């Protein structure tokens, strides 16, 4: 299959990437775009480590084809904050709660949580647990992650009010 130019928005900037359209989007992001923060663990859309946002909606980039990004807005963990700038509240809260250990799942959790908080700015614990059930962590358990998401939600609400 010949390579094509795939145009999309990646973390806020327009990109045009030459790739095979039926290759996994995760490969394109990691190899052609250099976004190593997109982790690939299970390669079967089960674990959620490769979660990105496509037009604001969470998606497993290992189970998407590259062509499915055409014309879309793709957000990865690399776009959450820029070097030298303040961390995203989710990143801050994850760090404060030590909501990671090996780190393989963390990028996916951060992106999933971003999508959650965009839809539920004041999520209750049940809603957080239901959303986070999409992703798997085998190090920390989920208590610290849930606490971090709760704190990030509060920080984001406070930022909005400030």
């Amino acid at each position: 299959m010949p390579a094509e130019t795939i145009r999309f928005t990646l973390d806020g900037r327009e990109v045009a990437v030459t790739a095979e359209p039926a290759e996994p989007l995760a490969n394109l992001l990691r190899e052609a775009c250099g976004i190593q923060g997109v982790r690939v663990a299970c390669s079967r859309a089960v674990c959620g480590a490769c979660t990105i946002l496509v037009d604001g909606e969470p998606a497993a980039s290992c189970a998407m084809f590259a062509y499915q990004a055409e014309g879309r807005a793709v957000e990865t963990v690399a776009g959450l904050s820029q070097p030298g700038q303040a961390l995203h509240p989710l990143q801050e809260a994850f760090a404060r709660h030590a909501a990671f250990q090996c780190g393989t799942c963390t990028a996916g959790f951060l992106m999933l949580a971003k999508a959650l908080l965009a839809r539920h700015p004041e999520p209750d614990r049940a809603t957080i647990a239901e959303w986070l059930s999409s992703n798997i962590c085998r190090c920390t358990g989920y208590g610290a992650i849930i606490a971090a998401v709760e704190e990030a939600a509060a920080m984001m609400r406070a930022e909005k009010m400030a």
Partner: protein
Amino acid sequence: MRASAHGLIATTIATAPRAELRRAASVPEALDLLALPGAVAVAGGTDLCAQYNEGAQPARLVALDAVEELRGITVAADEIRIGALTTHAAGSTSAPLRAALPGFPEAWAMLANPRVRFRATIGGNLMARRTRYEMSLLLTALGAELRFAAPGGGVVAASAHDLWEGRIPQPALLHHIAIPRRRGARFTYQRALRPQLTLALHLHDAGGLAAIGTEWLRPVALPPDDDTLSALPGSFADPVISHWYARRAGATLLRRAREALDAR
């Protein structure tokens, strides 16, 4: 990375031979492309990923994203039409659907996880023909029709049972699902015993229908007032649940379903 995918490592879309991508812009074009050797339809692609893991290596992917005719939910006087490309997220949050068929969007919202819901479609859920996917059970209770695009134009209707029996047009392109509208319709889905047993109940002023299924068995339609599940076929058993258990537990689920609807 191009592993050979032998041994304990499953094939993935990264390791399988790369398929040719064809983009369909219309229903007739999609049918033409799906008639090509080794062609498979791609909607959200979430189940196709699982199929790759199971060894599928399609030669051609037919992208349906641009076929707008397959999208959307329409509520008419006599039926509800749900386009095959409707995602779980869109369907389960549809206000018109909620108004027309209370309980069904809530049941739909139970399927999959939040990440999958935004990409996976009702068409993919059905066409995957996996007993652990639950939409065919919900639609069995609703007496829904699956309407497939016909090569000469128009649609060909099939039931959820026909889908399981393989009695569907080829090449198969699910166009939309049609749910008949009934006065006083209400719906509930009892899922607490999943994966062993789940039950959907659809009641309306003129009667209703229940449907029961398991992770491994095709859904079966039952009369809604069959308190002992006497109509459950003797073959309804799997390695996890016996027929006796299915009848006992199913009767409990049916009672709970009726109570849930009465409480509304």
